[in-house]
């Protein structure tokens, strides 16, 4: 009898000691640990990191200026010949006599730029709309949700095509905004759904019972809890964004600047136009787009797996 009581006390001491020293594991540290153990996420992150390094150090890595036309390349340009690899130009020429390798390297920068901006703008607008809808409820919620319904009435790429086609003149910003706006309703619905689910949850009820201000509950308790879902969605959106941008370029709705080295533009305009003359002009940017899109999809799915509270230990 005594022995059992002794054992119980010991066990309780052990448990309190463990809780005190660890203080439990913080959400983010735990998430980070599980992310590092997830092979899908690691492979995705590695691919992205590689391209990110190329993008950041493009001026150091690229052998030439991406917009300069080289006389040694332009002299061999005809309607159906584009110079292939030569001594100074390992990937050969593009249709305007520019160094193709340098354009591919700078392309990492431009493509990431388009993807990051389109995703961020879509995320911010979506989170704003969804957050307001979820926090306010009532008629504000109804109006915002009906608005997202209207945007979701068209498949996303068609909506992007519509937005660009209805703009009077296409620039790089038209493309970025169109691809961003397409994702706004998705982020808005995601965040609103998550906030509605939390409104009746224990931690929010507890905070409300303690008399915490509404704004404080929304910013400190509800938004951080919805964050993982939004981040995962943003990662997956990035892949879609660069694919959509490439599709717009292919349809002639892309950036009209002929100097811009962006993979989607290189693939969608010159790549397909000269497919029979020099397929590398399509192969290389396509491969780069596939790899980056794959990287973000893998990272997103790995994150979804790792950050799922059901898998939390």
């Amino acid at each position, binding site marked *: 009898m005594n022995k059992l009581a002794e054992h119980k006390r010991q066990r309780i001491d052990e448990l309190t000691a463990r809780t005190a020293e660890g203080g439990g594991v913080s959400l983010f540290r735990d998430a980070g640990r599980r992310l590092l153990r997830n092979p899908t996420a690691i492979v995705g992150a590695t691919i992205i990191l590689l391209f990110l390094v190329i993008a950041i150090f493009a001026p150091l890595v690229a052998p030439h200026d991406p917009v300069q036309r080289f006389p040694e390349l332009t002299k061999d340009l005809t309607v159906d010949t584009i110079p292939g690899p030569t001594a100074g130009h390992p990937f050969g020429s593009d249709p305007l006599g520019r160094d193709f390798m340098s354009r591919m390297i700078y392309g990492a920068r431009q493509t990431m730029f388009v993807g990051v901006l389109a995703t961020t703008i879509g995320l911010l607008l979506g989170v704003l709309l969804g957050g307001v809808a979820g926090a306010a409820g009532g008629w504000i919620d109804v109006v915002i949700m009906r608005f997202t319904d209207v945007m979701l009435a068209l498949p996303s790429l068609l909506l992007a095509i519509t937005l660009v*086609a209805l703009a009077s003149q296409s620039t790089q910003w038209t493309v970025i905004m169109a691809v961003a706006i397409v994702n706004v309703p998705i982020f808005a619905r995601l965040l609103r759904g998550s906030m509605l689910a939390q409104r009746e949850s224990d931690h929010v009820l507890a905070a409300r019972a303690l008399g915490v201000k509404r704004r404080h509950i929304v910013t400190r308790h509800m938004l951080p809890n919805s964050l993982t879902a939004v981040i995962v969605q943003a990662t997956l959106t990035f892949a879609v964004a660069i694919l959509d941008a490439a599709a717009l370029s292919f349809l002639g709705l892309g950036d009209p600047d002929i100097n811009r080295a962006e993979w989607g533009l290189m693939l969608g305009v010159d790549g397909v136009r000269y497919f029979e003359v020099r397929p590398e002009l399509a192969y290389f940017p396509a491969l780069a787009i596939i790899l980056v899109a794959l990287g973000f999809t893998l990272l997103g799915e790995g994150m979804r797996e790792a950050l799922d509270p059901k898998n939390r230990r």
Partner: protein
Amino acid sequence: MLKVVSRRLIQLFITLLALMTLIFFWLRSLPGGPVDALLGERATPETRERLIRALGYDEPIWVQYGHFLKNVVTGNFGNSIRTGEPVMDVIGRSFPATVELAVAAMIIAIGLGVPLGYLAARHRGRALDNATIILTLVGISIPIFFLGYLLKDWLTQSVHVFPPSGRISTGMDNTDVTGLFVLDGLLTREFDASADALWHLVLPAFTLATIPLAIIIRITRASVLDVLDADYIRTAEAKGLRNPTVRKRHVLRNALLPVVTIIGLQTGALLAGAVLTEKVYNWGGLGTLITDSISGSRDYPVLQALILLAAVVFIVVNLVVDLSYAVIDPRVRV
């Protein structure tokens, strides 16, 4: 059931009205409006005036909006700026081509996707499963217009297996009944025309099917895995039901529910993908019509009608999918 359908139809109507309203005011809020976009910068003031009067843009905006709504409801979208024909005629002519392409793509996506997803799930963690997953990941990461050019280059230029573009060989004497060439050939017993049209259909349909195929495989796999873990499967196996019975009546029936939803959503991918695929293969359907209406000066009347049509198709398909739930899932009785 009837109540749900009518409520959803009213919702659909309001959504479409809001969409058209947004597009109407968007067009008129552009600097210079559609007139400048149509004429370019070199237009003389007289031609400008004439066009403004012809399009009714000299009237107050609310009057214009009223006319616009009346026309949309009665299906009168005006005349195409490019060809001068009534918009409905232009669209009617291109519609069957896209229907044929989209249906073929959907048949491929479902016909290959469900069995592949099921097989991958049954061989979970093994080579077949991993290969399938990698293929689907590449499938959703590849720009489909690039895939289209790739297939076209390999199978029509290097090896002459398939025709490179168009819906039917020139000189093929086919009778037009429904506008769906493969079906027409069967109906009129012109089997050579049917076979020829089918041959033209293979590459475009596979290109268009890529994304829905990849997604259907993934969803089927995930859903089958879910069901395989369920208690009622263990029960079915434990009580000695034969394997084929368990698979058909217990696994597949339950696993296919989420797949049905995805098929509805993938109609969207088909509509958008058709624009890209039709441009690659010069298909001459609605996708080609969109491309033609946005290249150079924009054909706004045609564009407006096409946008409305796409939205109607997308929403109606998803409505049908939701309603079919009541039929296939006894738990959802609306």
